[in-house]
């Protein structure tokens, strides 16, 4: 076996702990704590979360203050002679910054979940799957090659399957889990094939080795790889055409939605694109395609979000929309703003989900509807404050975190040309519209059509405190832009550096703020000036409602395509039974039908068949050989 430079001896302890802590916690919880004390399963796991968060912050500060980085192979995984796929670790600005967000938000959601899931009979199973998911996400961020990335990418999908289908007794949850993993699998096709092609061309898939080669040389298949990677990202990061699994995945418990569909899993696709940016930027047309798909997804999902009534569904479509914003930013060539938005979005969207979870928990339901709430600001003041801060951030209002990241993407759009400007403004309007509609209808009022959440109570401390901490991040995240610019440039795998966040510009500020103001104004009218509008338009314009409910017809199309695959499978099954096997089963009958002679031959004795076959085959072979 080939000796590889590097190895565990060179690995600093914070990086080792990032893997060792969750693995140890999972093993201890599964084998020791769960059988003995199922209700304590979360204890080792929460300890592991604390270790992970500390290590991630430590690593981030090393990157920030010392420009530290790491790219180490750690021994062979799949080996055949000189063909080698090895494990490895890569720490650079991109992975360290996203990792810090994931570990802080993720750790706090773990704490929240220990309260939210306390009454659930599947408490132990939940925490094991939840932490496995967390481990997979950490591994994904720290991978140094496409094949290892694929390993964790799939593990993320696997863990999400377990979590979305956590309440497996519910038919909708089962369907959502199946849909999520099959859709992701469809996207994984792209990553699997991309890894195969890169491996065939470069004999390696390490980022640090292939990106400089791609930038400096010309390789025919790299364009294909770029498109395949984007295809993979559309599934994980819920972009058109593969976004549809995400809203349905809200069937999982709320902490799952908050962790997977705000801070971690869905950002994996954007992370993959940012990671692959040196490759993607060399492919002609692809960045423009990415920008268009991102903008289209952002606007369409934003419009659909305005019509939803289920709190978690509004947030789900909002997530699709914001992932679209990130993808849009990436397509415009702005890696730093896109990743920055990924991070700020992780904070404010987690707050929104957890607040929605607190409301549903307060109502003793798995999920809540706009009909059932209204006027909650008096009954749940703390949740109200957190939600408002996060909503302002999502709406892109200065000086909340979301403003800074969204503004940077808007700035790029304003410099791109008319279509990008229109897209940027529309995104700003729809975002503000759906989130302020949600804010007003949930916490103000109640309007005459709402029940107002009669017996609802404020969340207990274990579920309120984590939300408070993440809200702090939403408040302060915007101040870290300058540091983020330093971090993201650290360890970029190719010589050309990426641009920092753009400088403040009054014109961008004005455009962004006015778009948000327009959206918020419309929401104001809907909620206060004409409070029954939100209920009446559905009966007045049923065609519009059904169009919005079916995601402008895409959902029926997906169902049709699925039915097509099932029909193809059934056709194959029938063909195999009737034709392929039919020929085999029919052979003795044909012999029987061949008259007297044939009937005497078809004796049903194995010996006779055997001799006839031998003779026949011999004649056949000799005839062909001559």
């Amino acid at each position, binding site marked *: 076996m080939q000796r590889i430079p590097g190895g565990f001896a060179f690995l600093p302890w914070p990086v080792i702990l990032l893997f060792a802590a969750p693995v140890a916690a999972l093993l201890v919880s599964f084998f020791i704590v769960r059988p003995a004390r199922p209700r304590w399963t979360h204890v080792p796991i929460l300890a592991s979360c604390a270790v992970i968060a500390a290590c991630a912050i430590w690593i981030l500060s090393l990157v920030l203050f010392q420009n530290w980085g790491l790219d180490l192979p750690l021994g062979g995984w*799949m080996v*055949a002679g000189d063909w080698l796929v090895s494990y490895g670790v890569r720490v650079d600005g991109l992975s360290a910054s996203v990792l810090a967000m994931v570990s802080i938000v993720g750790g706090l959601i773990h704490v929240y979940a220990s309260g939210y899931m306390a009454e659930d009979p599947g408490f132990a199973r939940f925490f094991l799957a939840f932490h496995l998911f967390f481990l997979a996400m950490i591994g994904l961020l720290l991978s140094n090659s496409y094949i290892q990335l694929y390993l964790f990418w799939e593990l993320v999908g696997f863990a999400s399957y377990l979590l979305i289908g956590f309440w*497996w007794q519910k038919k909708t949850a089962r369907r959502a889990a199946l849909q999520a993993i099959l859709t992701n699998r469809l996207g994984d096709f792209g990553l699997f094939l991309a890894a195969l092609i890169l491996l065939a061309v470069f004999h390696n898939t390490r980022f640090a080795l292939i990106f400089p080669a791609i930038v400096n040389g010309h390789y025919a298949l790299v364009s294909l790889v770029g498109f395949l990677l984007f295809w993979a990202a559309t599934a994980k990061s819920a972009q058109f055409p593969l976004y549809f699994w995400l809203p349905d995945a809200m069937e999982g418990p709320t902490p799952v939605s908050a962790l997977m569909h705000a801070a971690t899993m869905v950002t994996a696709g954007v992370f993959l694109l940012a990671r692959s940016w040196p490759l993607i930027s060399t492919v002609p047309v692809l960045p423009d395609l990415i920008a268009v798909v991102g903008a289209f997804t952002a606007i369409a999902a934003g419009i659909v979000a305005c019509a939803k009534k289920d709190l978690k569904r509004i947030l789900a479509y909002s997530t699709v929309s914001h992932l679209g914003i990130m993808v849009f930013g990436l397509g415009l060539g702005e890696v730093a703003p896109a990743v920055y938005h990924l991070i700020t979005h992780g904070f404010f969207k987690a707050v929104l989900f957890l607040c929605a979870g607190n409301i549903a928990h307060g109502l003793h339901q798995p999920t809540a509807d706009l009909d059932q709430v209204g006027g909650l600001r008096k009954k749940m003041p703390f949740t109200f404050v957190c939600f408002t801060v996060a909503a302002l951030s999502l709406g892109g209002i200065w000086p909340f975190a979301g403003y800074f990241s969204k503004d940077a993407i808007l700035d790029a759009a304003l410099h791109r040309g008319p279509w990008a400007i229109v897209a940027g403004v529309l995104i700003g309007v729809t975002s503000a519209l759906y989130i302020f509609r949600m804010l007003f209808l949930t916490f103000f009022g109640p309007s005459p059509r709402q029940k107002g959440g009669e017996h609802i109570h404020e969340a207990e401390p274990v579920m309120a405190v984590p939300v408070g901490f993440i809200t702090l991040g939403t408040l302060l995240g915007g101040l870290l832009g300058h540091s983020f610019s330093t971090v993201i440039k650290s360890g970029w795998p190719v010589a050309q550096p990426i641009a920092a966040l753009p400088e403040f510009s009054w014109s961008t500020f004005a455009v962004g703020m006015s778009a948000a103001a327009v959206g918020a104004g419309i929401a104001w009218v809907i909620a206060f000036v004409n409070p029954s509008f939100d209920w009446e338009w559905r009966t007045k314009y049923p065609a519009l409602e059904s169009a919005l409910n079916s995601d402008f017809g895409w959902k029926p199309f997906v169902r049709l395509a699925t039915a097509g695959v099932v029909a193809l*499978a059934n056709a*194959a*099954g029938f063909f195999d039974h009737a034709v*392929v096997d039919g020929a085999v089963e029919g052979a003795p009958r044909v012999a029987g039908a061949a008259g007297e002679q044939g009937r005497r031959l078809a004796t049903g004795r194995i010996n006779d068949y055997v001799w006839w*076959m031998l003779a026949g085959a011999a004649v056949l*072979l000799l005839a062909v050989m001559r």
Partner: protein
Amino acid sequence: MLSAIWAIPAAGGLLVLAAAGRWPAKRLALAVAVCVFALSLALPWAAGPEGLSSLAQAGPLWAYGIRYSVGLDGLSLVLVWLTAFLTVVSLLSAWKQELSAGFWASFLFLEAACLGVFLVRDLFFFYIFWEAVLVPMFFIIGLWGSENRRHAAMKFFLFTFFGSVFLLLGILALVTMHHSATGLWTWDMAVLRGPSSGRAAVVVFLALVVGFGVKIPLFPLHTWLPDAHTEAPAAGSIMLAGVLLKLGVYGLLRVALPAFPEVSWSLLPWLGLIAAINMIYGALCSMAQGDLKRLVAYSSVAHLGFCVMGILSRTPEGLAGGSLQLLNHGLSTGALFLLVGCLYERGHKRGLSDFGGLFAKAPWFTFFFGVAVFASIGLPGLNGFVGEFMSLAGMARVLPILAIAGVVGVTLAAGYALPAYQAVFWADPGPGSVSAKVTELDWREKSLMWTLTLLMLWIGLFPGTLLSLLDSSLRGLLL
């Protein structure tokens, strides 16, 4: 030493039959199988520092160059391990059933024949062992199978014998061709070479491919498999999927490809196409099945497509990955058949709609079935991924379009495995469901599954040892 590996189970089988009624047959059979497994594990130590090839032995020369000889390399060793291990697993899987001595003896005879195929290096004896495999399997299906067992056993026998006929004629033609070219009578696999081109070479090579292809099974020679699996008892299915299908690929690796390197290379696109059809068509057919055993049987058709694709690529990674996939498929599909057998033993049903909601009452059952399902659909971290990925990586360097077909196969795999998993373990039990009869796995079944699970994890994360074992021997054989 090597001959003892196959002779011990053969003698053990006779002993079990002879001692029927006096000694408990199943305990005796298990003791023999465990001995063989322990012995097979000791083989690398027995070989010592000179390497595995030092264990080779040869008998006296007979007429026409026939000579009994056995040999060992990494490929044979891995498959010997698999056979010996799965024999123990399948005997234990049937442990609770009251069966006659013949049943237990059949498994030992089957093990002996399979081990013989993997160990002998003389084509004459290879063919004898090859045919000997059919007999115990015929009885296992025909005597201890379910309702439709006679038909399935007959179909299995005739179909595989149909392949054997081509194999026999192919072997005879190969030996004659070699004699007329060199003037030397030999049946030694390491020496025999066919002509590098010409119609006769192609025909003989294809005869060998048909012979081996029935066992693999290659499309369109696969339809005996679903019937045989459905009717065979669970222990028989484990051996059938876990070991018997491997014989075909082993034959390709050991006989057909080394004897016709040029011909097989020129036919690569066509053979690769068949492997691709295996993957995609097998997966689609699997999706259409309502019977768990048929579903797993068709998934085997798809999985063996990966093995064939890997070895056809003739790259180090393809060969090592394709042959590792043989082991992987043996473990994951063996585990699936073991668990389906447990379901059948409890509920006497196999349909997807006959169960539902088992998670609530049998969490370990659900857990292990999930492990086996995800291993078989290639979740990285478990064993299936390593074999699939390396096979396709090999093909991607030779004929990328076929590798793309393979990735489609990988994608489709989730489409048949997960709905079935959900239907049995998550879905609400429908009318006529036998879920109420299904009880949790007992400690015997759980320890079998733990062993399989740990092996799957080990191969998935650290396949290096096995891969280097396979790589070094395949390198000598085909590169």
